């Protein structure tokens, strides 16, 4: 049966103006997926490297942290790929972490007032970006010098 494109339809996501609470909601899902795949694979790679020995650990570090001064262009490229991935995973972790705290608080019934909800959402973004920045600076200053 042909549908009349002008038929009345119930309002869906598209009718709402984007706000921080909507961004945080979909980002919770997206960052959760990133952590479940890239994040956990990296964690398992790290644990495998520790348990296997210094050579496996050095290999992990050459990809994830620092390829060293004698790296070929491909090794440097792979290193930068994993550094950017690690930065993304780090931000995903803190975003999901703080957003998760917000969800647990909302599960208690708090924070549904419009202004409170908006404030909490913005706080989550600020906290996640700050924590990611601090972590990146800490890692870069401690472990990335050649």
């Amino acid at each position: 049966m042909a549908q009349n494109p002008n038929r009345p339809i119930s309002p869906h996501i598209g009718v709402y103006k984007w706000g921080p609470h909507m961004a945080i909601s979909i980002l919770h899902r997206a960052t959760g997926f990133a952590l479940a795949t890239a994040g956990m694979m990296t964690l398992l790679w790290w644990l495998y490297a520790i348990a296997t020995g210094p050579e496996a650990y050095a290999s992990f570090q050459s990809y994830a942290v620092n390829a060293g001064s004698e790296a070929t262009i491909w090794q440097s490229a792979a290193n930068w790929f994993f550094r950017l991935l690690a930065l993304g995973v780090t931000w995903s972790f803190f975003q999901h972490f703080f957003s998760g705290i917000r969800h647990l608080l909302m599960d208690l019934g708090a924070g549904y007032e419009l202004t409170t909800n908006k404030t909490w959402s913005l706080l989550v973004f600020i906290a996640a970006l700050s924590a990611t920045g601090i972590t990146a600076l800490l890692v870069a200053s401690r472990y990335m010098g050649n």
Partner: protein
Amino acid sequence: MGNGTGIGRVRGLGSAKHGGKHWIDQRLTAIGNLLLTSWLVFSLVVLPNMEHETVAAWLAQPSVAVPMILMLISIFWHVRLGLQVLVEDYVHEDGNKFAVLTILNFYVIGAAAFGIFMVAKHAFTGAPA
């Protein structure tokens, strides 16, 4: 809906009082993840360096290996519950949904087993020289 057999009477009526378990488990594992990942981040920050010797000695301690294993269980359980909802929201065709959920279960159980084995092997055999 039938009114003869037991199964006929309950078909289409929704959950058999297990509806809350998925939701509660997701929150319980979330709290576990909050505590255990906070522990991991704090532990890594206070480690003097990230050389293999240091990290291997650190991970071999029972007070580190046990929470690490607990963290892997809590996280992968949470991953299973969370990604299950994601699949159910976006994969609508029954056959595909079944296939993707099967892959998800294989992934979380396999990956968790691998991680737990690595930590246990390391803790039981000591840091390799």
